[in-house]
């Protein structure tokens, strides 16, 4: 269903709230993978607020759609989503990274409510998502699996093993996203380990590929609608994004892959994101 202007306005508001929450958690936690969490904000916002069939009051509902954050270091970005969806009391996020907290920088599916797969080590989420999609087929279930990868993560061989399997088994109930923010810890992806021609690679591995602006809700909605209607195999949506998006002093600076924030920087970051 095409996205409306009102929906876009509402989603933009949610995204700003999520970004401000990520900044707060980063302060409480003493640091977070803030850059890559900010870059994927629109992707997780539209999935959780428009597409995912889920019930936060019943997180283990058998027929729910699954969301796998293959780029598990986006944990802080995912945790604020789950808190805002009502999976748990947002006050718990004040203990993020602290001793015995349910939340560490990589979310644990046995501890953090609403997390469908424990991730953190790169290249582990997509294989699990492939398993969930195959499992849905075996169990004749209609749920859909969404997996979000990082672009640097796609250096891992296991991503391509899983990519082969997903197209081999024609997993139409699996939609992939790459948060293509072009930066990894040590610098630009194309300098550290070249990914381009990235679209061609996914295409060669048998996926139907869309490359879009990953901060544009209209393009995201169009692509997800396309993926849900495509019945010949899995769809990969390569989302071109900006690492640190929304916080002017973080944008496109690899130093903000992981970092802490002083009270002053928190103030500055929130101002940059904007109040509602």
């Amino acid at each position, binding site marked *: 269903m095409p996205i409306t202007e009102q929906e876009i306005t509402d989603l933009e508001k949610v995204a700003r709230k999520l970004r401000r929450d990520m900044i707060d958690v980063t302060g409480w936690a003493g640091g977070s993978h803030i850059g890559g969490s900010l870059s994927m904000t629109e992707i997780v916002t539209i999935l959780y607020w428009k597409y995912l069939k889920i019930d936060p009051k019943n997180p283990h509902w*058998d027929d729910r759609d*699954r969301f796998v954050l293959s780029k598990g270091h986006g944990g802080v970005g995912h945790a604020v989503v789950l808190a805002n969806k009502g999976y748990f009391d947002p006050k718990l996020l004040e203990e993020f990274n602290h001793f015995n907290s349910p939340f560490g920088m990589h979310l*644990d*599916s*046995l501890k953090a409510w609403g997390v*469908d*797969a*424990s991730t*953190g*080590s790169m*290249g*582990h989420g*997509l*294989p*699990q*998502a*492939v*398993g*969930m*999609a*195959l*499992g*849905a087929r*075996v*169990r004749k*279930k209609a749920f859909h699996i969404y997996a979000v990868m990082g672009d640097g993560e796609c250096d891992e*061989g*296991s991503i391509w*093993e*899983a990519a*082969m*399997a997903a197209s*081999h*088994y024609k997993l139409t109930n699996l939609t992939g996203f790459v948060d293509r923010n072009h930066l990894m810890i040590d610098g630009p992806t194309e300098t550290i380990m070249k990914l381009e021609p990235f679209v061609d690679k996914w295409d060669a591995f048998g996926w139907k590929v869309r490359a879009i602006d990953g901060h544009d809700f209209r393009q995201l909605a169009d692509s997800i609608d396309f993926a849900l209607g495509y019945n010949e195999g899995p769809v990969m949506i390569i989302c071109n994004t900006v690492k640190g998006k929304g916080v002017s002093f973080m944008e496109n600076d690899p130093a903000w892959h992981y970092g802490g924030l002083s009270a002053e920087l928190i103030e500055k970051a929130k101002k940059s994101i904007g109040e509602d």
Partner: protein
Amino acid sequence: MSKEGLTWTVYDADKLTQAEIYGITLCDLGEAHPEIVGLSADLARSTKIGAFGKKYPDRFFNFGIAEQNMFGVAAGLAKVGLLPFVSTFSAFASMRACEFLRTDICYQNLNCKVIATHAGTSFGPAGSTHHAIEDLSIVRAIPNLTVIVPADGIETARAVRACLDINGPVYIRIGRGFEPRLYESEDYEFEIGKVVELRPGTDVTIIACGVAVLHAVEASTIMQRDDGISVRVLNCHTIKPIDKEAILKAVMETRRIVTFEDHNVIGGLGTTVADVIAESGKGCAFRKVGIPDVFTTVGYPEDLQHYYKIDTDGIIENIRELLGLEFEADEDWEDEV
């Protein structure tokens, strides 16, 4: 030199009995358990999980030569309510796919069973790339994982059935399928975490697992006859959780313990038993026998078992040496064994 390994051809491969029992057992279980799914990485024939695939083509998946993905996929299948049996060679299950076994399956405590075949030196002629002499050391350090080493095909069937009672990950380590049969039937007490006492004895205790168990039984019989020595034999099929009670009982009753395993002497059964003895504070003469921390040589399994002294001759030789060793409880540390 044994020529056993030459007696089969590719045309006989489907008739081999011991590993085949696992395939047949899984097929049986598949009927009562529609949630069971089988996974292979281009080794469906070798690991015998292909039998399951033939019977349940919609519940069997081959991932090609891509073990890391296969173990991650298994986690995903378990996450949505299925019960995956993942089969590949032990070397690949424990090393190539190790992090996926550990992080995807065990960290999430998923109900997923790993059948790791061709363990130890059982794939003799294939050489060290295909020998798994480190797998027990690796996998027993992974939390949540139960680790079982059946002594033969019959015990493999028991283990495969019993592991369904555990709601969590299980690693079952078996050979290539040529191993001689120890048990005549499934009619014996098998409980995960409890040793099977195959021979009573009062002079020395052999604690063995896998292919070494049959040789231990033979050695016990021979030593009773030729040496007048009473050798207890414990089939320690579960490495984790280890049967501390049976080990300490043997320490106190026989005061001499030898372990035999088709695995590096570092980190496997011997080390596990040594941990139990050391923590107990009880003194005993102790020796662990297995692969002496070397990359193994090529040869037929029987020849390798002989070379590494885990066959009947090697076990007897080791026990005779151990019987000559003494241990003391006094404070003179100069003459300790």
